[in-house]
């Protein structure tokens, strides 16, 4: 058994129980007594090279890099939901793509069940991808319009050779669809994506990842393309899936209200770094980093009487090619002091913060 296969512990279960529909059985911890987190990201760095023109290359100008992810660390336990929050360009999607192996990290470790999977060759990544599944933002784009629901959910099983017979696969498809809240599943099997609503499409995408019995689900803005009235349903589904099947969920979102409601932990990213990390309640109620405070202040409240002065930051996220010196937030920070321009703050637990709440700010 190779190192990678060990990461897949437990070994694939017998066919009938692969989608783990029975909460009672599946909810048991995978490795009782061990403290190894499901996912541990340590000092992860992902840089993209900026393309040089012919003249620049000939003149041997130094290569420039996009600092997409610039040294982030976090861990995710089984059954836990972590929300990665930040503006576009902050590196949250690059983080997820690196974990998934779609992008090779420049340095750092990604431990899945204790095994480092950072920078593995594609062939070695393949078995890992079975237990790490991804839900994309736009279910109008992510489903093949020429596939029926049955074909969409069956395809991952064919890729991984799950389900010996057609009938065997059919029962797995049905249970995955019902697990994703599409009941009765028979009603949906022969439909095409255009016959489904946005919420139903996203549930089909979720079912297609559930047939593989994933341990880690990466969800990139899973509801931002859906109508307001159905968003809560899809989020509640993800919430109950992680509780029932002990699956860890890493959710990317730009919506702090959603993160506050559904996630256990929130990591706020800015320009490739995590600037604040803590339990969702602590981060929302007692933010330590000025960026988190500003982000929270601009979230529109439902109650029109609750109109408070938003702390609107001017400008937009700087270019990740030319990262500002010192604290990378200092050019937009309302409380920056001289020290912030020269010294890069590390993530630490501020005195005023709750236990386990970290912020990267000299003044926190």
């Amino acid at each position: 058994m190779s190192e990678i296969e060990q990461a897949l512990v437990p070994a694939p279960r017998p066919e009938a129980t692969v989608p783990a529909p029975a909460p009672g059985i599946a909810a048991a911890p995978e490795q009782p007594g061990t403290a190894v987190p499901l996912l541990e990201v340590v000092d992860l760095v992902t840089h993209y090279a900026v393309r040089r023109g012919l003249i620049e290359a000939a003149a041997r100008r130094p290569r420039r890099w996009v600092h997409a992810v610039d040294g982030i660390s976090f861990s995710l336990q089984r059954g836990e939901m972590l929300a990665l929050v930040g503006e576009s360009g902050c590196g949250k999607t690059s983080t997820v793509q690196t974990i998934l192996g779609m992008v090779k990290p420049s340095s750092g470790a990604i431990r899945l069940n204790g095994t480092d999977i950072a920078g593995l060759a594609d062939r070695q990544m393949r078995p890992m991808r079975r237990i790490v599944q991804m839900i994309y933002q736009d279910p109008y784009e992510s489903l093949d319009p020429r596939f029926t629901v049955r074909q969409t959910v069956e395809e991952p099983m064919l890729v991984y050779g799950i389900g010996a017979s057609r009938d065997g696969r059919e029962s797995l498809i049905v249970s995955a669809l019902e697990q994703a809240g599409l009941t009765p599943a028979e009603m949906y099997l022969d439909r095409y994506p255009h016959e489904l609503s946005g919420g139903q499409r996203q549930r089909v995408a979720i079912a297609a990842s559930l047939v593989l019995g994933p341990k880690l689900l990466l969800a990139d803005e899973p509801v931002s393309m859906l109508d307001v009235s159905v968003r809560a349903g899809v989020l509640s589904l993800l919430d109950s899936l992680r509780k029932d099947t002990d699956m860890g969920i890493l959710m990317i979102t730009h919506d702090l209200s959603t993160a506050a409601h559904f996630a256990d932990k929130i990591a706020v990213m800015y320009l490739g770094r995590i600037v604040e990390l803590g339990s969702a309640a602590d981060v929302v109620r007692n933010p330590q980093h000025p960026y988190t405070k500003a982000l929270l202040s601009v979230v529109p409240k439902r109650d029109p009487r609750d109109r408070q002065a938003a702390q609107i930051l001017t400008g937009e996220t700087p270019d990740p090619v030319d990262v500002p010196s010192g604290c990378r937030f200092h050019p937009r920070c309302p409380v920056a002091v001289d020290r912030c321009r020269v010294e890069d703050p590390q993530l630490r637990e501020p005195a005023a913060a709750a236990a386990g709440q970290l912020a990267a700010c000299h003044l926190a």
Partner: protein
Amino acid sequence: MTSLLEVDGLHVWFDLPRTAHQHGNQVHAVKGVSFELQPGERFGLVGESGCGKTTTILALMGLLPSNASLAGEVRLDGTNILAGGEDSVRAFRWKDIAMVFQGAMNALNPVKKVGWQIAEPMAFHGVAEGTAARKRAGELLELVGIPARSAERYPHEFSGGMRQRAAIAMALACEPKILLADEPTTALDVMVQAQILELLTRLSDELGLSVILVTHDLPVVAQMCDRAAVMYAGEIAEAGPMEALYHDPQHPYTRMLFAATPDLSGEQAVTSIPGSPPRLDREITGCPFRQRCDVPIDRCEVEHPSLRYIASGHLAACHRAGAHRDELAGTM
């Protein structure tokens, strides 16, 4: 007092192309929508996709596609701008009513300088030309928070937020009285969204501009608008002051829509609304919301509820509104 804008019984139908399966079908997208807009007021038009909110404001601009037909009146300062059909709107378009389109930041011409694009409608409507138009384009850019010298730059040199600001500057070129903003912040980051909403609020306060904000995002409307109308299946389900809609919702849809929206406090449970809106290419009997409603009565099956006053300035299209007010409020 006459309102600046009165929309009175607006209907919009779209003809569907004939196919092998159906012939001559129509979608009744907007079904008798009426509302008023006061000078300097910020009014929200809220609803899910397909509820007719964008169709309503495209009708005000006379920009509906050719397969659309419409009925009803839209009075601007007492003049029915739809009197001569859609063509008669042209005289008012941009000069009195201007619009910031959904995804407007991606609608700028990539090969023309931003300043030129802002000056173009001014020349077209005879407001200003040449140097004067260019000078005014610079002033408009300053007004929306972009340095005037950026008029010489191309859209790709702007960030998403700046392009959206430029689109707003363009809409303001002919000094309109009414600005229609269709999902002006949907594709933007939260911080940029806050900047754009602050800009729209400031413009409305400083220039006395009336704004109709079309969005699916209730909290955005709650923070920015004085009044709002909640649309469902082509009709107004409830309209009134923002405070009344949140604290005293009379239509179950309004209440359920607020309950489906997460709030930062994270305390109240967030619940989605079951089912989906009805198809608009068929006749709907009874209340269009009854299949998704949590408190339907027999009457909802057979009788279509009309929009009626529940309190001063507060309208709802629900048989149970008003009478069961305490009961409905109790379920919030």
